[in-house]
């Protein structure tokens, strides 16, 4: 499997994987065949904690139902492009946590919701 396939397969179990380089102890996303920190190839996958903060976001209005696109900086370091859900008042620097949206075929798409929504 390619790193990309491994990553998507893990979403079936609602696992958000990040590539980790033991040589430079650094996480990266999206998964690829090289560590962008040291150029090494011996990367392993680790499950992300699923916590982060909103770096920025935009409400996309060119759709029947507007949706919130966001850049979430994970606690481990990498930034994900994602959707922010159940967030009536999104703002930069808000803590968020991982949630999942089912996709056709059993995979899931990671999305993020408020970290303190009591759920």
């Amino acid at each position: 499997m390619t790193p990309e396939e491994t990553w998507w397969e893990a979403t079936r179990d609602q696992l958000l994987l990040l590539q980790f380089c033991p040589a430079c102890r650094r996480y990266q996303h999206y998964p690829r065949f090289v560590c962008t920190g040291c150029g090494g190839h011996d990367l392993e996958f680790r499950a992300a904690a699923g916590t982060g903060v909103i770096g920025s976001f935009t409400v996309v209005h060119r759709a029947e139902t507007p949706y919130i696109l966001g850049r979430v900086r994970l606690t481990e370091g990498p930034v994900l492009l994602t959707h922010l859900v159940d967030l009536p008042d999104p703002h930069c620097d808000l803590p968020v946590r991982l949630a999942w949206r089912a996709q056709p075929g059993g995979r899931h798409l990671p999305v993020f919701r408020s970290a303190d929504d009591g759920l």
Partner: protein
Amino acid sequence: MSVAIVGAAECDLGQTGKSVLELQTQAVTRALADAGIPLSEVDGIATNGISRFSATQLADYLGLQPSWSDSSFAGGAVFEMYVARAAQAIDAGQCRTVVISFASNQRSARSRKLAGVVEEGTPEAAFEAPYQPLYPISYYAMTAQRYLHTYGLTRADLASVAVAARARAQLNPAAWTYGKGPLTVDDVLAAPMISTPLGALDCCLVTDGGGAIVLTSAARARHLPQTPVKVLGYGEALTHTGMATAPDLLHTGAGAAAARAFSQAALGPADIDVVQLYDSFTISVPLGLEALGFAKPGEGLHATIPHNTGGGGLAYCHPGQFGVLLLVEAVRQLRGDSGARTALVHGTGGIFSSHATVILGVDR
């Protein structure tokens, strides 16, 4: 470096109903006429956006067999990169007369898509497309959101960029919005929302258009009709293609590109008289002026350096890759009666993906 821009021109702009090659031909032949150089003397071509073999295609169409060409693709920044490549090629003796050109009929052809194009097989297709970002608008929108948040500003503050661009375009008869009257902050705020905080009037125009410039050695330029516009420095920076790659949305490649150009020219921001920077969206202007050294972080909306004098992509013309017209306007300013002796041109491509700065000057 001893290379100068000796000719510059626009093709027809706006909604032309013309083909790309007709507009390209207009741009090239008008720029050559401006330079006083016959078409047959062109031995270098840099262009894209025509076909897979863009420079070769244009050479075929014009009946030329150039000894140098460049069809690099890096979005709207590439024309500033072509200047660097052309200056190197002329200095190295690989060619003598280079035409850099671009034209698009995107308004007439209705070829611009708001969602953009996602190329299959890229990481963006796998990891970003499922979230349906508008390309490139949503990236600039997230940058704008972060900018307003960081500096405690509002959409109305950003709207002032569109208002100022429209005002400048009222002095430029070639501008798409010429004669359409002034814009108010309320107009900008009331325009349809596209991707918050950017509404329709925070976005550059979608028009046909293009232009061309002609470069040759500074030694030869002295014998040509126009005041030679010397290439004093250039610099580039490529930073990302993905919307999640850049660690900091407010730290673009513009600073690195400009620093390289300033270093080569042995000049600094205080030495520059006029700036042409790629105003794809309102946010691009303050953020760009800050990165280029013309304002402190967060103070770009109050920068006093004259910039985007023709109205820019927001109010004058935006044919999809605006970079060539930044150069044309810079040449116009340096030859004109504004008294400007130095100009900085900064092109940007994609989602702040590629950056290229060129510093130009005239002896006055």
